[in-house]
Structures are given as structure tokens and as C-alpha cells.
């Protein structure tokens, strides 16, 4: 073992969404196999069935899937996937409200911040309706594309809702058959390391598995980052109160029931209910805080929401993340790195971002690992922190009166800065900020946050421009409404005919 040793044997521990997605991204990025190339091996325990995190994704998933060489048609068909164009928050302000956080950026987002001009009035429509055409599509369960639109392209920005139970085998098949990932089914009985670097994994039945870089995708077990390296877990439960989830699968009432274009999050007395429409069923669940609701009362609220008696699966949520993610030659990705309530569907996007970062930072030789680890840790500590802050913002902006909501706001003021300034690019210094100024605008103004008027910072030319953009947004939305099929119609056609690659 020397600093000059090349990094070419990548071992991924864990066969869930994180494991296969990371293996796929790395195998696609480093396609040279054989003795002089890079090997990617995924070891998975027969005993540990994958948890299947979240069914919601971000638009980044389109480029990730495209990069690893998956066909969108195959993916949609095999994972019962549907199109997701953002989130809709219902009842978060006071119980009678609703607003969208769409994926398409506000009009003119690259050039000018038009939010102050919307804030100024007359506010003939909500912020998102005024500056984003996509809300009109979501209102009518329309698809973000047509059957003639090529794979991974759209007329509005989109991601997917997917069945994680089908996504994992889909990725596994692609990784092993197309990308040359070696799949090992075995138990790890010992992690052999030297000077803080893992050398090999001893397994129950097979020969030892040596490697140069180990990716810990072992889920909550955190076999390498937690059990072996003892990196502590930073809990966020003082900030994010949610610690339980009750999940159910709900069939559609009729075969032609609309498939929603967004994840619907409906506020409840001690948390909120997610509602995700796949092609075959809805996935619904109540995430709540056990300090404010019993399982019985939560189940009652969930049943009231669904309107039927259902049996649920109870899940514990331990919000938080590792103090470090990359130690020596080991990187944690997925649940072993951290987990937060699925409010903005951050789980899968964090896996994608991690895999991409590893691929981009991967040094050629062992001597480069320390630098890669330093950058990776800084980047991801920042990202997890920012996600927690952004999730918390949804709670602090609420005016609901149940104890869960009141306590959520206790001692957590809305950042004073947003009172005098509308979120904009310069506020977010990091490259690939998880939540951009656009997300902050959609949530702040969607939840009715009222900044102080600062008319001396506004001007007539931009005011006119804003008015024009709002007119254009409405027109564009209406013209798309006329040509876009419903989600169900398009998904049916895709299942029958497929999408073209060009």
C-alpha cells in the first residue's frame, strides 16, 4: 500500500437505490474495464432488503439516467413512473391555502429578479401563477411533454415519481448487463483496514473483496462510515420534529382517474401527508412527530385524508446526517450519509449529487484522496445544512395553530434579510446549490410572506418588463394547455408506442 497506488477498484456496499445509482454513475463515467481499467463491484447482503427511499425525484434525475445510458421509455414502463413537475403544498399557511413549488424557474430568472414587482402589486394572481406557466399544467394534471417530444426532453421542466421497489431491479439489470458492474451477493463479516484505509472486505461465503475506493450505501446500518469508522451522526431532530411515518398504497378509484403532475403535501395537526401518483397506484403517507401525535391519532388523520380504512406500514425517521461523509478511501452515499423528512424529496437527488461529485473528484492515485475528501465533506456539509434550513422555512412561515406548528416556529425567526430583499442569485454562493433563489421565492411568496416594501429600489423599465413577462407567462401557459395531453393519456401512449430518442 503506497500513496502512488492507482484507484481503480471501486467497491459499492449495498444494493438499494443509492448503491445501484452510484454504481451506475461511476461505471458510466469510467467505462474502461479489464486489468488496466476501472472495476465497479457491488456487494449486497441477501438478508437486508433495500428500504426504497422516496418515490419523488428532481429534474437532475433526467440527466443522471441519460448519462448512465438508460432509455426513458424503458424506465417509465418498468418503474411505473409518472411525471413530476413540482410540489403542491396544501393547508400549510392556515389550513385553507394551497401553493405550488414548480420545477420551471420564474420568468426572466436568468436576467432579472421580477419578484419585487409582483410583490408590489396588484397581485392579480399568486406568485407562481404570475411568473411560472407550469402551474396551469399542474392544475389540469397535464404532462410536461407530448408523445412526439424526444426522450428526456420536455416543454416544461420535470422529474419523476417512481416505484422504488421496481427502480432498484431496473438499475441493477442495466448496471450489470450494460455497464459491466460486478454483482456479489454475500455478507460482509469483517472490514480490514490499515492506516485508516479500507483494504478489503471479508465475506461469509466468498473470497475477500479488495478495493481502492469503498462506497458505503448500506443504508441505516452504515457499515463502513458508522460501524467501522465511527463517524458520528448529527441529529436534526431539534429543528425538524418529524420522526415517524405511516405509509400506504392507495389504488386509483377508476382506471382513468387523473395522475397528478405534482407531489401533494397536505399539512396535518402534527406533520403532513405526502401523496404521489404513479401509473398504477398512489403512494400516500403521513409523516408526523411522535411528540405531538400518537400512532392511533396519526392513523386516524391518514384514514380521514384517504377516505377509506387502510392498513399502513410504520417507519421511523431519524433526521440528520454524518459529520463527515468521506473518510480515507470510504464515502457514504444515501441513508448511511443522512436522511431527512421527504418534504422536498431530497433523498434521491442527494444520491445523484454525491455520485456525481465522487466521479468528478476521484483522484487517479491514493495520494489524492485526502484532498478529494476535504472538498467532498465541505460541499456536502453545506448541502445538508442548506436542505435542513430550507425545510425548516416551510414550518416557520406557517401560521397554523396546533402545538406542533406553534412549537416549530418557537425561537426560529424568518431570516430578517428576506424582509428587505427578495432571494436572488448572489444570495446563493455555492455552485449547484440544492435549493436556489427560485425555490426560496416560490416558498416565501407561496406562503404569503410579506417583505417590507422598498420602492426606491424599483424602476419603471423593470416594472414594465415584469408586466410583459406576466402576460407572456399566462399566454404561454394557455397555449401549452391546448396541446399537452394529460399524464394518463401520455403515459398510456408511451407504454404502447414508446418515446423516440430524437
Amino acid at each position, binding site marked *: 500500500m503506497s500513496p502512488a497506488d492507482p484507484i481503480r477498484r471501486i467497491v459499492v456496499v449495498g444494493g438499494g437505490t443509492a448503491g445501484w445509482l452510484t454504481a451506475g454513475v461511476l461505471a458510466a463515467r469510467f467505462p474502461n474495464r479489464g486489468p488496466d481499467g476501472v472495476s465497479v463491484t457491488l456487494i449486497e447482503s441477501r438478508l437486508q432488503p433495500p428500504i426504497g427511499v422516496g418515490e419523488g425525484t428532481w429534474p437532475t434525475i433526467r440527466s443522471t439516467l441519460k448519462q448512465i445510458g438508460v432509455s426513458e421509455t424503458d424506465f417509465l414502463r418498468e418503474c411505473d413512473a409518472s411525471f413530476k413537475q413540482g410540489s403542491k403544498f396544501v393547508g400549510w399557511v392556515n389550513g385553507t391555502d394551497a401553493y405550488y413549488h414548480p420545477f420551471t424557474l420564474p420568468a426572466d430568472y436568468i436576467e432579472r429578479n421580477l419578484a419585487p414587482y409582483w410583490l408590489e402589486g396588484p397581485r392579480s394572481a399568486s406568485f407562481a401563477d404570475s411568473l411560472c406557466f407550469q402551474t396551469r399544467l399542474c392544475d389540469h394534471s397535464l404532462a410536461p411533454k*407530448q*408523445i412526439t417530444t424526444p426522450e428526456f426532453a420536455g416543454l416544461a421542466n420535470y422529474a419523476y415519481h417512481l416505484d422504488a421497489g421496481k427502480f432498484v431491479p431496473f438499475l441493477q439489470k442495466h448496471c450489470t448487463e450494460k455497464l459491466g458492474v460486478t454483482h456479489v451477493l454475500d455478507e460482509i463479516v469483517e472490514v480490514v483496514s490499515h492506516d485508516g484505509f479500507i483494504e478489503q472486505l471479508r465475506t461469509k461465503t466468498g473470497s475477500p473483496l479488495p478495493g481502492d475506493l469503498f462506497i458505503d450505501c448500506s443504508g441505516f446500518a452504515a457499515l463502513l462510515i458508522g460501524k467501522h469508522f465511527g463517524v458520528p451522526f448529527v441529529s436534526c431532530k431539534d429543528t425538524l420534529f418529524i420522526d415517524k411515518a405511516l405509509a400506504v398504497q392507495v389504488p386509483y378509484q377508476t382506471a382513468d382517474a387523473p395522475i397528478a403532475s405534482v407531489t401533494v403535501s397536505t399539512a396535518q395537526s402534527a406533520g403532513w401527508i405526502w401523496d404521489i401518483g404513479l401509473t398504477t397506484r398512489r403512494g400516500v403517507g403521513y409523516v408526523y412527530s411522535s411528540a405531538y401525535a400518537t400512532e392511533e391519532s396519526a392513523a386516524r388523520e391518514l384514514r380521514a385524508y384517504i377516505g377509506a380504512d387502510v392498513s399502513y406500514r410504520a417507519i421511523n425517521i431519524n433526521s440528520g446526517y454524518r459529520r463527515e461523509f468521506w473518510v480515507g478511501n470510504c464515502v457514504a452515499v444515501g441513508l448511511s450519509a443522512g436522511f431527512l423528512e421527504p418534504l422536498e424529496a431530497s433523498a434521491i437527488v442527494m444520491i445523484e449529487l454525491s455520485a456525481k461529485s465522487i466521479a468528478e473528484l476521484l483522484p487517479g492515485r491514493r495520494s489524492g484522496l485526502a484532498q478529494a475528501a476535504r472538498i467532498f465533506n465541505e460541499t456536502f456539509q453545506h448541502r445538508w445544512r442548506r436542505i435542513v434550513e430550507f425545510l425548516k422555512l416551510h414550518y416557520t412561515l406557517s401560521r397554523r395553530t396546533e402545538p406542533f406548528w406553534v412549537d416549530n416556529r418557537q425561537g426560529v425567526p424568518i431570516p430578517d434579510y428576506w424582509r428587505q430583499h427578495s432571494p436572488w442569485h448572489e444570495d446563493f454562493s455555492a455552485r449547484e446549490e440544492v435549493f436556489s433563489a427560485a425555490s426560496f421565492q416560490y416558498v416565501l411568496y407561496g406562503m404569503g410572506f410579506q417583505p417590507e416594501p422598498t420602492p426606491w429600489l424599483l424602476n419603471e423599465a423593470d416594472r414594465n418588463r415584469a408586466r410583459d413577462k406576466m402576460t407572456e407567462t399566462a399566454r404561454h401557459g394557455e397555449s401549452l394547455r391546448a396541446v399537452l395531453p394529460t399524464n394518463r393519456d401520455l403515459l398510456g*401512449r408511451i407504454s404502447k*408506442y414508446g418515446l423516440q*430518442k*430524437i
Partner: protein
Amino acid sequence: MTNLTTLTSQTHLNLRVSPQITRDSAEMNAVSVIPREIPRLLAHYPIFFLKSPESGRFEPVALLGFEPKENLFFNDGRWDVDYVPLQIQRYPFSLVPHVGEPGAPASLDLAIDMDSPQIVSEGGERLFTDEGTATKFLEERASMLQALVTGSTEAYAFTGRLAELGLLETVQIKVEFVDRSTKTLQGLYWIAGAALEKLTAAQLMGLRDRKYLEWMYFQMASVAQVSQLVLRKNRVISGVAR
């Protein structure tokens, strides 16, 4: 409006249909064609591929004009070249799914659009003899429709294979007319020449064996007809068309 009615010798014994194409069936700027008529189309029409709005699959089309509903081959009530694409020749006849016993094998019935201006009270062609058997005219139409059904399956198999091999690419056709106005045609696809050169011998043989290679070269050659289409448009612009 169309008013499709299943044809029977009892109901339609004395019906007369004019083979003369009318504006109703001619007003379109592109018509889908089947591979087997491509050799005949080549002499007059530029052929490209378009995505079907129904299925997104590629279909071969003959371009007839540059603007919506503009058919530069149809002037003064007549089609001015000797070969009319089957999809237009077939009017006012169609095939419709047979409504039979549930579970019976699917079949198609010959139908006619009773609202078509090609239905005439005098002249034209009879569909049935007095004895109620189909006339040669009707038999020809029926076989055209049959050819369109078979041809459409064949066309989708052809374009499906082209797409699979990456042999189709988008193309923007920009033309300039005599009055200096320009037009860019969007949404068209053609054979990707560069991809064609990279095919393996086995892939090429596969294409040749199914006649696909021939059709591909015909399509490529037909692009030259775009300039003929521009000349037709120029005659309209200059007012010498009629």
C-alpha cells in the same frame, strides 16, 4: 365533417362516386405515404419523415406545400402530376373496425364518407353492378385501402429499424422564394448520412434484405424535389400558376 357509413350493396347499389379529387381531400401540406409507393413518388415529391401526433412514431411523408393546408400539386380542382399518393387517392373510402360479436376476431369493413363532395348524382363511377357485385372501380379502391393498411405496418417497421440504428436525424429545411421571403420547415427528419456510413456489413445486409436500403436512398434522392416545390410556390407568388 365526415359521415362514415359501412358499404353494402343493398344500401349503396346505385351510389355514384367521382374519382376526381376535391379540395376536401387535397387540402394538406404533407401526406403520409407507404414505402411501396416511394419509387413512384420520387419523381415529383420531396419525401421526409414526420412523427405521428398519435404515437410519436416516424412515418414517411410526401411534402405538398409550405404553409398549413397548402397543396401546391392541386390547382384549379385538379392534381397536376400523374401519381397521386394512395392516402389521397383512396377518398372517400376508409376501412373501419368491424362491429361484430364480442370476442370475434378483429376485422375491417369498407366504409364511405357520405358527406364527401365526391359523391355525385350523375356521372362518376358505380360501386356495384345491378347484380350487387363490386365494380372494378370499387375493387381498386378496396385494394388501395388494403395496401395502405399493410403499408402502414411496413412503414412503421421500416422507421422503427431506422430509429433503432440511429439512422434518422432532425433537419431544418430553409427555403427562399422569388419574393425574397423565406420559410423554415421544422419537425422534419431525414436519413443521417454519417450514421449510414458507420453501419456494419451485417447491419447493411439486414437493411438491404428488407428493401430498406433502397427506400432510404430514394428518400435521400427525393430531397432534391424541394427545389421543384419552391418553383411551384414561386409560380403561385408570381401569379402564373393558373
